[in-house]
C-alpha cells in the first residue's frame, strides 16, 4: 500500500478511522468546526483521497468509507521515513528513537517484550 497522504488528507482519514463510514456532509461539518475548513475545501480533499484510492465513495448520500487502515498509513509513513532518513535500516531508526532518552521505564519494558516476541517469532 503505497499512498502518500498529506496532512490535510490524513485529517479526513482520522475522522473516518474514528467514526467509521461517514457522509461527506458530516465530515465537512466536523472539519469546519475543528479545523475551520470551508465545505469546498473539505470536498476537494475528500476527492483527492478518492483519487488516491484511500477512500471509497458510496452513493446515495456520498458516504465515505476508508480503504486503508490507520496501521497501513502508519506503516507507509514509517517506511518512507526509514528509507528517506535511515537508508532503509530499521535498527537505525529504533536506535535514534531510543537515543532521545525520553522513554519511561514502562515503555522500555514494553519494548523489551516486543523484541523478545519478535525473536521468538522469527525462530
Amino acid at each position, binding site marked *: 500500500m503505497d499512498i502518500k497522504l*498529506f*496532512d*490535510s488528507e490524513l*485529517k479526513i482519514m482520522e475522522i473516518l478511522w474514528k467514526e467509521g463510514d461517514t457522509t461527506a456532509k458530516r465530515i465537512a461539518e466536523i472539519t469546519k468546526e475543528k*479545523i*475551520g*475548513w*470551508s465545505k469546498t*475545501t473539505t470536498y*476537494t*480533499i475528500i476527492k483527492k483521497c478518492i483519487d488516491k484510492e484511500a477512500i471509497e465513495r458510496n452513493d446515495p448520500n456520498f458516504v465515505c468509507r476508508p480503504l486503508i487502515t490507520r496501521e497501513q498509513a502508519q506503516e507507509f509513513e514509517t517506511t518512507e521515513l526509514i528509507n528517506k532518513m535511515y537508508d532503509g535500516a530499521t535498527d537505525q531508526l529504533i536506535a535514534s528513537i531510543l537515543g532521545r532518552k525520553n522513554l519511561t521505564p514502562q515503555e522500555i519494558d514494553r519494548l523489551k517484550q516486543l523484541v523478545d516476541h519478535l525473536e521468538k517469532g522469527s525462530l
Partner: protein
Amino acid sequence: MTILQMSLSASILIMVVIVIRALALHKLPKKTFLALWGIVLCRLLIPFSIQSQFSIYTLVEKIGSGIMEQNGTTTPNTRMFPTFIDNAGITQNTGATLQTTSPAVNLSQIMLIWIVGCIACALFFIVTHLHCRREYKTALPIQNSFVNKWKQEHSIKRTVQIRQSDKIAAPLTYGIWKPIVLLPKTTDYTDERRLQYILAHEYAHIKRFDTLLKWVLAAVLCIHWFNPLVWVMYILSNRDIELSCDETVVRIFGETIKSAYALALIGLEEKKSRFNPLCNNFSKNSIEERIKAIMKIKKTSLVGIILALLLVVGTSTAFATSAQTTAPQTAEPESLAGQEIADIFADFGLTYDNTSDSLFFDAKPVREIWDATTRTLYALSMGADFPDNAIYLITIYENDTLVGLAEVSGEEFKRTLATLPETSGEESEVKIEECKEAVAEEDGTSGKKSDMKIEERKEAAAEEDEEIYSLGTGMSGFLSNDGNGTTTYDSTKGITESELALMVEYEKFGLTVIGDAYGTEYFYKGDLVCFFIDNHSGDDANFSGIVYDTENNGGSYYLMAKRDENNKLIAIEEINAQYADEISSWR
C-alpha cells in the same frame, strides 16, 4: 493620454528610480523606494497628469524650442497639408495620418494584441494564484502555545490566522481582509527566537497591506505587459517590499539581531517554496541582496530622512508631472492658438475675436504676422477665406526688443518671408543658396510672372467663392517658388517630414506644391493645376490619399499620380477634364 503614452512617460521615471535604487539602496530607508515605486504606479495607472513648471519635460521643451528658434522658425499653430481622404470617404485635415494603409485597421489590430496580452497576463496570475490558494486552504491550525501567545500579543484590527501546511517550504502570508499566515510543517517550533522573526516579518506584511500592493503591481504589469521596464519595476518593487519588511523586523528587535535574522533567512532559502506571485513570501528572489541589505541596516539619521523626502518629492515633481503646456491640446487648438498670438502682441494693438476666430489689427482682419527676428510665422490656419481688407503684419524691432507691428502689402510680406535666416548648418546651407538665387531672380523678370499668378488667383477667388473646396488650409510659405520651376523647401515652417518627403517625390515629376496665404496651389510645367489626384492605396475602389480639386482657378492641368504595385510614385500623368470628373466621384 493613451496607455502607450502613460507607459512611455513612466518608463523614464522607472529608469530614474532604478538608478536611484542602484546608487542608494543601502543608504536610505527602504520605504523611500516603496514611495518611489508608488509614484511610478500612479504614473502607470492614472491617465492624466499634473502639469508642473518644474517638470523635466518643461525643461526639455524649453531647451527644444530654444534650439528650434535658433535654427529658424516655429509656427505656433498647426500647418496643414492637403486634405486626406480615408477609405470611408471622410475628409481628414491632418498630415499626421499620411499613411498608405488605413490607420483605423492598424490601430484596432494593435488594440487587439494589447487586449490579448492583458488577458493572457491576468489569466496567468489568477490561475497560478487560485491554484496555490486551493492548496493553502487545506492548511491545518497550529496548536502551539508560543504561536498562540504571539497572536494575542500582536492583535490587529483584522483577524489573523496562523496555520500550518505540509505543502509549502517557506512561510507566507495571503489574504487582504482576512490575512492568513502559513508556516511550513518543517517549522522548528522549539526555536522561538527564529519563530519570532518569521512572525514579525509576516505581520509587517499584513499591517502594510502588502498583499494588496502586490495585486496592484500585478494589475499594472497586466496592463503594461508590453513594456520591459514595467517588468523590471515589478521584480524590483517586489524585492523592495521584502527589503522594507526586513528593515522593519530589524528595527523592532534591534540591530543586534541582524546576523541571526539573516541566518534565519538563509535557513529558509534552503527550502525554497514554489512560485506564487501574489503571496508575501518570506523567502524569495535575490536572497543575497536581502542578506546584504539586512547587514547594512543602520539607524536612520535625520539627514537620511530629509534626503529621502527630498528625493521622493523631487523625483515626483520632476519626472512624474508633465510639461506645462504653452499650446494647450484641447478640442479647439486653433482658436486658442489665435488667442495666444493675440496675447503675444497684445501690447502692440493686436486683438483676437473668438466668435469669428480671427485676429484684428487697427480694426482690420489680419492674415499673417511675420516675425523676422525669431523667424516665426503667426497665422491662423483658416486659409483663404479672408475679406478683401485683410492685412499682413510684420514685427518691428529696436535694439533686439519688439516695439511694434507694421502693416505691409502682400508682395512685401512675401518678400520679407523669403529673406533668409542667418543661421548655418550643413543641410540648410544648400537651401540658403537655392533661396538666394530665387530671391535674386525674383527681382528680375521671373518675379513678375510669379506676381502675376497671384493676381490671377485673386481674381479666381473673387469669381468663385467655393473654388478651393477641399483645401481650407493655409500653408503659408513652407515652399516658395521662383516661377521657373525651382522650388525651395523651408523645412522649418511646421510641416511634417512625411509631407515634405511626399512633396519632394512630386517635385521629381515636375509637380510643385506651394502653400501661401491664399491656400495651397499646385504647379505643373510652370502653370497652375486645377485637378490632381494621388491614390495611395493603389486600389481604385478603396481610395486613400490626396485629392486636389478646384473648378475654376484658371489652371489648365488635370493630373493623376501613377503608382506601381509597391506603391512607389512612378509618374504624374495628364488626364482630360472628363476623366478627372469621373475620378473625383470615386470618393
